[in-house]
């Protein structure tokens, strides 16, 4: 420790860890958790305001907090954590060096400076323009846009450094094929690059406009460019989350992807087609033709959805195979019953996959169609969708992997393991109730980003949506109650992470639960199996019958909900178009 060694060897995983990379992973991860905490407090206050029976905040505060919550969660928390993940995947996991530490420092400082200024401006009511900041609505100060741009440039530098690390490792001969985890993060990084550029292209003219340098910004073109970031950034989360899913599956069950090539093709499908999803937000905009909408909304024949369906199959399949090899071979589902449900990483993986797939993914495909979008655009169904993907999906997956990366990177004993074991379930239950309430409210036409759907303060033409449909009150109460439970679940994570980082006992061999340390080894030597016991049988029967059953049930549910959405559209009493 006292030597000037720049690398250390991890006693648990056998990986070589570059100390400068390690420091930057810590900084980015800690910053991420700080933003997660801020965003969580705001989430609670917002949910308690939209729960119409409580209606906590005054309107101005509410809109300020919705703006801040959106930026802090969708951009700051998740990108800081992803940068930590990018550094980890491009250095530690490859046992290789970080090439240009100062570049990562500059990236970090720009992201930190930009995000702190933007957050302060939003919280102080000087930039109440929502996450989207659609012109010609303008922030009171141009410096808000400047701060976000500085953050975006910092994030671009971090992404560039990821590529530099990978290329250098490759040139040095440290790596041939990338681990699937790193490959998925590379997909995320490619998507991140163009989405951040698209966001910068959207926001820079707005900055100039608020400075008075240019006379106006076209709101239609802004929306097109902006959603390259707005949705693109979520696709970064998707690809990164899928990488984490594969990682958690390997870590907690010793899973090895069924077909390496297929999983990688599914990630390439994201890179090629998922950017088209940006157009989802413009489906009821003036200015776009029918075919532009059809082709883009369908990610070119739903090619990106296919990517997700492949992962949805491949990840449980690889776990089934690993657990069957360990001897849990009876019936369709013995492997599932004997899975490590008490291991926080496994719990987070399963809850994240279920909520993301069932609620987030399916709802996204449904409301992303040009016709059904007419009854869902800007209703609460939209945030319900992305809370199921980004919060119940991505955030929970990231929390799951943090239970291992935090002790291993910080070299501390994980504290409050019991709390960690329950956390994914509490958080998932909260998000499930929250998401169903919010989604149903949206399905009943309740608008998003709205302070008062009873319109109690409106001077003319008053209307009360809750009086029109009393069940809306129940849905909003579910949203509030689910929100409270989810915030408790989030606080449990923060408590574990903060306690571990600051008061966990220092150790070179932290206890990291029932993980499979061989997960980091390229050689297929898994406990209880020599590698290929099932190979011969594979020709006669299915290798992963349990997963096939689960997947087909999932697909049937998907088809049912999809059909139901068209039925609901047909119930609109007016003829449109």
């Amino acid at each position, binding site marked *: 420790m006292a030597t000037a060694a720049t690398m250390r060897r991890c006693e648990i995983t056998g990986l070589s860890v570059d100390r400068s990379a390690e420091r930057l992973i810590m900084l980015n991860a800690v910053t991420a958790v700080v933003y997660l905490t801020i965003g969580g407090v705001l989430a609670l206050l917002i949910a308690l305001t939209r729960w119409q029976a409580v209606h906590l905040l005054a309107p101005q505060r509410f809109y300020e907090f919705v703006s801040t919550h959106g930026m802090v969660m969708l951009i700051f928390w998740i990108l800081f954590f992803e940068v930590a993940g990018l550094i980890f995947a491009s250095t530690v996991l490859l046992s290789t060096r970080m090439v240009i530490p100062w570049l990562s420092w500059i990236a970090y400082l720009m992201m930190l400076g930009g995000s702190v200024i933007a957050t302060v401006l939003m919280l102080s009511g000087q930039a109440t323009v929502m996450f989207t900041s659609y012109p010609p609505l303008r922030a009171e100060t141009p410096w808000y846009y400047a701060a976000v741009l500085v953050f975006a440039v910092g994030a671009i530098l971090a992404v560039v450094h990821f590529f530099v690390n990978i290329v250098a490792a490759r040139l040095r001969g440290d790596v041939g094929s990338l681990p699937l985890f790193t490959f998925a993060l590379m997909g995320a990084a490619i998507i991140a690059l163009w989405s951040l550029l698209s966001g910068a292209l959207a926001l820079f003219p707005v900055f100039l406009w608020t400075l008075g340098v240019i006379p106006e910004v076209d709101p239609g073109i802004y929306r097109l460019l902006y959603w390259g970031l707005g949705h693109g950034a979520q696709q970064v989360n998707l690809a990164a989350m899928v990488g984490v899913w594969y990682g958690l599956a390997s870590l907690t069950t010793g899973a090895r992807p069924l077909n390496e090539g297929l999983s990688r093709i599914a990630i390439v499908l994201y890179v090629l087609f998922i950017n088209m999803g940006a157009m989802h937000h413009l489906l*009821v905009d003036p200015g*776009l033709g029918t075919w532009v909408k059809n082709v883009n909304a369908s990610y070119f024949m739903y090619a990106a959805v*296919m990517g997700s369906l492949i992962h949805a199959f491949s990840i449980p399949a690889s776990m089934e195979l690993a657990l069957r090899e360990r001897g849990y071979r009876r019936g369709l589902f013995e492997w599932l019953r004997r899975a490590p449900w008490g291991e926080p990483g496994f719990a987070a993986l399963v809850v994240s996959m279920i909520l993301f797939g069932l609620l987030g993914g399916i709802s996204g495909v449904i409301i992303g*169609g040009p016709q059904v979008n007419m009854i869902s655009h800007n209703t609460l169904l939209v945030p319900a969708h992305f809370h199921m993907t980004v919060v119940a999906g991505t955030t929970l997956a990231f929390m799951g992997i943090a239970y291992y990366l935090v002790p291993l990177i910080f070299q501390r004993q994980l504290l409050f393991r019991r709390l960690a074991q329950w956390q994914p379930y509490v958080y998932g239950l909260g998000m499930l109730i929250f998401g169903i309430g919010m989604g149903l409210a949206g399905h009943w036409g309740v*608008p998003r980003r709205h302070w008062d759907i009873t319109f109690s303060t409106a001077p003319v033409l008053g209307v009360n949506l809750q009086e029109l449909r009393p069940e809306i009150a129940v849905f909003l109460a579910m949203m509030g109650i689910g929100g409270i439970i989810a915030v408790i679940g989030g606080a449990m994570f923060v408590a574990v992470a903060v306690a571990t980082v600051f008061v966990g006992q220092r150790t070179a061999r932290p206890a990291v639960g029932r993980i499979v340390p061989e997960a980091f*080894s390229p050689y297929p030597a898994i406990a209880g199996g020599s590698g290929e016991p099932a190979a011969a049988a594979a020709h006669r029967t299915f290798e992963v019958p349990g997963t096939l059953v689960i997947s087909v049930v999932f697909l049937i549910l998907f088809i049912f909900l999809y059909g139901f959405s068209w039925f609901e559209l047909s119930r609109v009493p007016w003829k449109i178009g």
Partner: protein
Amino acid sequence: MASRVSALAKPRGVWWEGLGRDERLWVWLTVIWGIAMFLMIAFVWPLIGEEQNRLHAYRVDPATFASQAEAFIQQYQIGQRDGVPVVAPPPGGDVYLDARAFAWQPVIQLKRGETYRFLISSRDVQHGFSLVMPPHSINVQVLPGYVTVLELTPEKTGEFPLICNEYCGLGHHLMIGRIIVTE
């Protein structure tokens, strides 16, 4: 069979291999489902649906649109509601709907079964046209400088509240309009 490798480890040697029986089955199912969903939005619903996304649009100077909307109100006004003009456009005609922070103008009275062409735009910031007809709403985006053209045929009588679903400023939750459908 090539050896399988943990997602956290670097695969060695050649890991590329053909799809097994399980994967082939699942991949085919996803391909078929993807194509089915595409056919639904692109061909099937356009043939059978009553609710079509066939928005048109053109650019307009916000001031020009505002004066066109004023002229429309003057021509067809039949009364007032809470100080907001009530307008009964001719059946089958154009309807100008003017959005501003924080009001929809005018209140519109339509005849059931007639098709109207709504011309919707904003004179200031972005707004969201959200016509409430429980349990759903019909929603389109409204931008200054663009006219969103939407054909609507009311097939149910009654009063339909119009609210704003795009954040447009601190009075966003005060923005209400109304469409009245009569026999």
